[in-house]
Structures are given as structure tokens and as C-alpha cells.
């Protein structure tokens, strides 16, 4: 019995050619596509008539501007430079994000639940993870793009960016043993507690899926943790070594 449902889940011929209600592509789908294209053609034309793409002065390698921002969709990563060294914010984190996104269909233990519906209640953990990460990306973009002024100082929207900011906060680093203990505890708890509390999820996912999922999840949660450590406890690095800092 158990074997049979497993195979069904893998093959699911009914999903490939299911019986369902169909309508003619012409006109029912084609006309919707045409309307969508028409609407966004108008948006684009109007936008292009009222607003010009920026063109500043000729590039000058010897004149560093007071604020240089990455293109807006990467500003979230640039904002992360406040909390992480460049090798983490600019290389490791984006790589982990891409790996995590790629693995999503393979670590989701349920092949059927919620397909074809916006079913938030059926997939609470999956929905939470994705929406959390997605929102974090755009919140970071928003902060970096609109609230960071010259020298990446923080400005509220009502503050004048021409007025230079004094940065007084002195930051400390955690001693190495404490830092290692923090990281080990963080990941160890993150990998074990959910297995004990959500036994169903653990058994359904299996060992490999479970560990990959939770490792990725804890990586994601490490970002807000680092932010809190810095903003609330004024801690710059959790781990300092001669070769790298975290």
C-alpha cells in the first residue's frame, strides 16, 4: 500500500493528461494576452514620454562620487555589506540563495499539496520561508535605495541627505570562543529542534531533505540575526580570524 502511493506520487499520469474543463485558446486566452500587452504598451509609452532615462557626466575613474549605488535590484546585497564582509554579502549569500531556489522543488516533501491554488494554510512552512526571503530581499533594496545617503549613512525620509551624519556607535567583536559557540548552537538547535517538534515533517521529508531544508533556512535566518546583533548589541563580528571575519 505504502509502496503504491509512493509510485503514484512519482508518476501521476493523471497529472500529465488530466480530465479537465477546457476552452478554446482562440479567443479566450489570446484576447487576454492582447489586452495585457496593450495595457503595458500604453504604460511603457506614457512612462517613456514623461520620464527620461538618466545620463550623468562622462565616467571619471579618478572622481569617486560621495555615494555609489549598485543598480537597484542589487542594492539589497549592497545593504548587506553593513552587516557582512564582501565575500559573504557579495559572493556566498547570493550563491546560497541561488542554490536554495534551485533546490526548492526537490526538498519540498509533498508532491501534491496546494498545486494550482493560492493555498496558504496548506503549506504554512513553505509559504513562510519563501515570503520571508522574498520580502527581505525587497525590504533591503528599499532601505539601501531610499534610506542610505552619502557614505551609506542612514537617513529617514524626512532628514536632509546634505547634512553629514556623525557615526558615534563603537562596535565590538565577540571573543572567538563565544562566537564559535554562538554559531554552533545556532545551527545545531536549528537542525535538531524542528525535527523533535515537527516529527511529521521530519519523517515525511527524510534525513537528506530535512537537513538541506533546515540548513538553508538557518542560513536565511542568520541574516536577521546578524542585523540584530549589530543594531541592538553593537556587535560587528561574531567570528574574527586572521583569514576571514563573520
Amino acid at each position, binding site marked *: 500500500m505504502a509502496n503504491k502511493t509512493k509510485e503514484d*506520487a*512519482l508518476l*501521476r499520469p493523471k*497529472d*500529465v493528461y488530466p480530465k*479537465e*474543463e*477546457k*476552452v*478554446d*485558446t482562440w479567443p479566450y486566452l*489570446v484576447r*487576454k*494576452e492582447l489586452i495585457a*500587452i496593450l495595457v*503595458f504598451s500604453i504604460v*511603457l509609452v506614457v*512612462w*517613456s*514620454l514623461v520620464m*527620461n*532615462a*538618466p*545620463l*550623468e*557626466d*562622462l*565616467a*571619471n*575613474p579618478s572622481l*569617486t562620487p560621495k555615494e*555609489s*549605488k*549598485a*543598480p537597484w535590484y*542589487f542594492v539589497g*546585497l*549592497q545593504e548587506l555589506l553593513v552587516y557582512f564582509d*564582501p*565575500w559573504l554579502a*557579495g*559572493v556566498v549569500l547570493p550563491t546560497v540563495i541561488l542554490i536554495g*531556489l*534551485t533546490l*526548492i*522543488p*526537490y526538498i*519540498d516533501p*509533498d*508532491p501534491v499539496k*496546494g*498545486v*494550482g*491554488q*493560492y493555498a496558504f494554510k496548506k*503549506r504554512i512552512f*513553505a509559504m513562510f520561508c*519563501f515570503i520571508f526571503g*522574498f520580502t527581505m530581499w525587497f525590504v533591503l533594496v528599499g532601505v539601501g535605495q531610499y534610506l542610505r545617503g552619502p557614505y551609506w549613512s542612514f537617513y529617514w525620509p524626512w532628514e536632509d541627505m546634505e547634512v553629514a551624519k556623525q557615526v558615534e556607535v563603537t562596535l565590538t567583536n565577540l571573543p572567538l570562543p563565544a562566537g564559535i559557540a554562538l554559531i554552533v548552537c545556532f545551527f545545531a538547535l536549528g537542525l535538531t529542534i524542528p525535527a523533535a517538534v515537527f516529527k511529521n515533517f521530519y519523517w515525511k521529508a527524510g534525513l537528506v531533505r530535512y537537513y538541506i531544508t533546515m540548513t538553508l533556512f538557518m542560513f536565511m535566518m542568520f541574516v536577521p540575526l546578524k542585523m540584530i546583533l549589530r543594531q541592538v548589541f553593537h556587535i560587528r563580528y561574531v567570528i574574527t580570524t586572521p583569514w*576571514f571575519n563573520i
Partner: protein
Amino acid sequence: MNIIVQMWRSIFRTGVADSPVHRVFRVVVNFLLHLHPARVSKDGIKLRYTFCLGGLSLFFFIVTAVTGGFLMIYYYPDVDKAYASMKDIDEIVPFGTFMRNLHRWAAHLMVIFVPLHMLRVFLTAAYKPPREFNWVIGVNLLLLTFLLSFTGYLLPWDQLSYWAVTVGTTMAENTPILGAQGPFSVLGPEEDMHFILLGGTTIGQPTLVRFYFAHCVALPGALAGLMALHFWRIRKAGGISRPL
């Protein structure tokens, strides 16, 4: 034969009559429409299901490709001429500013709509079997979309583009092991990832040509090829996802 009907037939290869057979025929024999199945699931085409996000991503890609071709005619990937050719496009070329604006704003919309499409696919669990691999293709489309936009950012060769791309490419220096500044680096500044990316230690003529090639040939080509695969896999998965 009515001349209008004759013209219609010569272009679209079908008559103007309407019947179930004609409707199917019209989709199947039309080059653009044949990407679609002749009949589609009723739930799948609801606006509130896909919000048309994937289709619009494709639309914005096409707009940028067409306007990009126009810009290529006037643009020189040469550090001494690039900025001047942008000024020409903005000030002398007829409809130059308009074309450049269309190119820029359509690119912005694409960078916004592709992640939104990914969000919709996730929320409707459309990555589950048999669509797992199409999701993987999608992640690559997302990355390529970002890179396409990023490489284009350098081309105007103004202060904005030069320093934004400096910020972005400096990250390559910090790659662990393979970057000169990164942890455990084994390569010097003249052989690391950053150097390979820029063709030098700072952004210069080699960088401009590299980014130009990536932006106008390599990345759009890869994107178009992967999109074809993406659409084919949608058809092979039995069309758009729907409740099981």
C-alpha cells in the same frame, strides 16, 4: 473573393469564419500562436491565477530586444565614443530618447515582473512534479535577467554606470579562494575572478567590450534559448498547473 478576406487569408492562412474547427485551426497554423495548445484549461487562463506575469516578462524581453537593436545602430562600445554616442541618441537621433527610455523602462519592468512571476509560481505550488525542472530553468532565467540588466548598466559610460558597476564587480575580488582579496586567496590581482571579469584590474576598454558582448549577444541569446525550453516544458507538463 473579397479583397480584405484574400489579404487576411494570405497573411494568417485561415478564413474569417468562426466555428470550433476554425478556432483550433487558427491557433495551430499561426506561427506565433502555435506556442499555445489549441485548447487550454479553463482555470489556468484566469487572470487571478497567473496575473499574466510570465507572458508579460516575455513581452518586456521582446520590447528590450527590439529597442536594443535600434540603440545598437548608434552606439559604439569604445571608451572614447560610448558616452558621446549616448549623447547623440539623446539629443540628435530622431526618436532616440524615446527608444532609449523604452529600452530602460521595459528592462526595469522585466526585472520586476520575473521575480513576481516566480512568486506566483511558488505560491501556487506550480514547481511540484512534473514541473520541477521547469522551475530550475526558471531560476536560471532569473539570474540571466539580472545579469543582462547589470551588463547593460555599464554601457552609457557615465558616472552613474561606471561607479555602480564598480560596486558590483568589486564583489568578485572577494570571492573565497578565487578572488585576490577574498579569504584563502591563492590568486594575485592580475589573475583572479575580478581580473577575468573586467579584463583588467579596473573597469576600462576591455570591460566595456566584454559587457557589450555579454549584453547584446551572449546573455540575450542564452535567455532566448532557455525561454524556448521553458515554454516547451510547460506544454510537455500538460499545460499550466491546476488543482489536482
